[in-house]
């Protein structure tokens, strides 16, 4: 796999604010890459820079090693599927898809053939004559994809394309997009704020926050080995605690010593400890490594979501066994359930479930006002 698209030191400044700060990113051929992050993290700006709608203020963009920073959108081998599809309302499905071909004066019989092929690819063969307004959200989505794919781009850019769809349709379209990527054999760059979507679809996930890339990796890497508190919190649920590493494979947090699998930190280096809710075992208090009081239990179908107060830090535990509110329980944590991260700008911002929901806020507010104060620090 060669580096197909590469951003080197790319920054973008709007009104004195760095919405993108020194981005380095290499995207390989035939990869399904997701730019993942909360709104305002710079993911859409990154996509628009690749598309050519935004010019970087610093840094350069390379396609196959060639600087394309000054090349207009239509001369780049990429096409975009816009967030709200941006279909041309005065044209029917066929003409929307045929748009790029018509611009180039492609012979009519070739237009007919290629549009039919495209509509077949997105499974809209029978909708050619349909007006855009008479299509469902999912169908409009498919038209937008077909329109973007017809000129044979090397890379398809998708800007939150599933955001406007309902949950069921979104699942279908996720599978559909993966299929399309396999069948067309081109690179897909997909922007989303939905971590589940990112994990289930991508070859590579690029997690962004505050205009910077926080982590690049495969979905399993990102989930199992988050590099900082932001990534750990944004991808899935995490309990993130202050800790230290007295020695390799030893860590200490919640006033308790634990064995872990991480190494390579300085002696007694302060670290962030990530423990996923599903990796904690609920045991009897006397058997637990940590002991706490259950403050809330929510039934989630597959499991219960249990909030446990341990020294004013609220843990989230997922367990298939029911425990009652107010019960004392013990927690058992295996060494491989503990993930140790370097301290970062995000340390202390995430990972305590004190303010997890409004309902719990109220409960906490009455019984333990100090818990909220700690969460803010």
């Amino acid at each position, binding site marked *: 796999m060669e580096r197909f698209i590469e951003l080197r030191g790319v920054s973008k400044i709007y009104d004195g604010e760095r919405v993108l700060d020194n981005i380095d990113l290499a995207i390989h051929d035939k990869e399904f890459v997701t730019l993942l992050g909360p709104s305002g993290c710079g993911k859409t700006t990154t996509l628009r820079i690749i598309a050519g709608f935004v010019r970087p203020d610093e840094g350069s963009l390379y396609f196959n090693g060639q600087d394309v920073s000054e090349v207009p*959108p239509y001369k780049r081998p990429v*096409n975009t599927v816009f967030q*709200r599809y941006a279909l*041309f309302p005065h044209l029917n499905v066929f003409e929307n898809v045929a748009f790029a071909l018509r*611009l*180039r004066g492609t012979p009519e019989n070739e237009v007919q053939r290629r549009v039919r092929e495209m509509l077949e690819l997105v499974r809209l063969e029978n909708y050619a004559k349909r007006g855009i307004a008479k299509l469902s959200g999912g169908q409009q989505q498919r038209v937008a994809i077909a329109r*973007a794919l017809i000129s044979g781009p090397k890379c398809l850019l998708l800007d939150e394309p599933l955001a406007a769809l309902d949950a069921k349709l979104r699942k279908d379209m996720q599978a559909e997009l993966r299929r399309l990527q396999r069948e067309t054999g081109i690179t897909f760059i997909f922007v989303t704020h939905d971590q589940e979507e990112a994990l289930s679809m991508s070859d590579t996930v690029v997690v962004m926050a505050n205009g910077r890339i926080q982590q690049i990796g495969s979905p399993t890497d990102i989930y199992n080995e988050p590099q900082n508190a932001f990534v750990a919190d944004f991808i899935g649920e995490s309990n993130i605690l202050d800790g230290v590493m007295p020695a390799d494979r030893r860590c200490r947090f919640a006033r308790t010593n634990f064995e872990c699998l991480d190494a390579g930190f300085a002696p007694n280096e302060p670290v962030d400890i990530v423990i996923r809710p599903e990796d904690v075992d609920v045991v009897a208090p006397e058997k637990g490594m940590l002991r706490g009081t259950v403050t809330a239990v929510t039934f989630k179908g597959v499991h219960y979501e249990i909030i446990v107060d341990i020294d004013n830090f609220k843990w989230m535990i997922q367990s298939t066994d029911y425990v009652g509110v107010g019960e004392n329980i013990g927690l058992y944590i295996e060494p491989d359930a503990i993930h140790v991260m370097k301290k970062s700008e995000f340390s202390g911002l995430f990972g305590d479930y004190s303010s997890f929901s409004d309902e719990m806020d109220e409960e906490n507010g009455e019984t333990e006002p100090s818990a909220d104060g700690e969460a803010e620090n």
Partner: protein
Amino acid sequence: MTGAKAGASASVLTEKKEKTSLGAKLLNAPYLLWSAVFIVVPILMVVFYAFSETVGYYEISFTAGGREYVCELPAAEDLTLEGAKEQAAAQAGVSLADATFTHASLEYRSGGFTLANLKEVWSPASRRAMLLSFLYSLAATAISLVIAYPFAYALSRSGAKSQRIQMLLIMLPMWMNMLVRTYSWQQILENNGVINKALAFLGLGPATMLGTSGAVILGMVYNYLPYMILPIYTVMSKIDVSLLEAADDLGCNWLQKLWRLILPLSVPGIISGLIMVFVPSISTFYISQKMSNGMIKLVGDLIESKIKDQWAGGGLNVGAAMSLVLMVIILVCTFVMNRFSDDDGGGMVV
């Protein structure tokens, strides 16, 4: 089975519709009353006058030999008021010298149904005025479109602050009365107006501008241009930026973008603008009067002068007939123009 189901759901739908339309009716009541009194009734009056004649008669009363006589005589062109008095006395068998006239006047009243007024509309003078009106307003509409379209496009693409300022500049003249604006143009174009003075200063001969077709069309364009710009601008500024980006992405140059995207999407605005300039242009009388010094008579001028004649010779009836014909022409034109906008009527007028 499905048919019954469909029927049931249809009846539910109509019930719901009735409910809302009842509420809507109550809300609409003041508007309906307003339009009945100020739109429907005047139109009916126009129709009535257009199809009826005016009858003139002499109303004469006099006393003779202690008896009172009241008499009505049909007016005729060769019958003067004095003649009518004589005739009235003669009819009563009273000698003119014995009669003491207490009242004698020429009166008018609406007579019966007639098509004579419409025939009058087809008179050469009237036909010429209508043709001129049609051609002038067509020219004014076309020129307005040519000026307004690029302007509206540039306006919709400029920054928010600059848009506000430009809008203000467009609206500013409209804060002044149209009569004042037209009168000002008359002053500017006059033989010893500003332009001719400037020309004289440059050693160029005085150019007669007032009274030409160009001056009349200029007056129309100047007065009604904002009505062309605004609807087009509104439609253009509503075009989603991502549509333009999509066009860029798919390989449009600016001309293709204009032709394949912006133009078709702005058709409703164009149609509104065409109608809003064409309709007041074709029926104007003040602009043509001032800008031509009364030398060019458009149909509006003709209607005005006819109605000013009031009853004499049935002027009001002929004026009403002309107005009616003009109204039908405008209606047909509007209908034809609206045909071109296959849209759901977003920017439709009338």
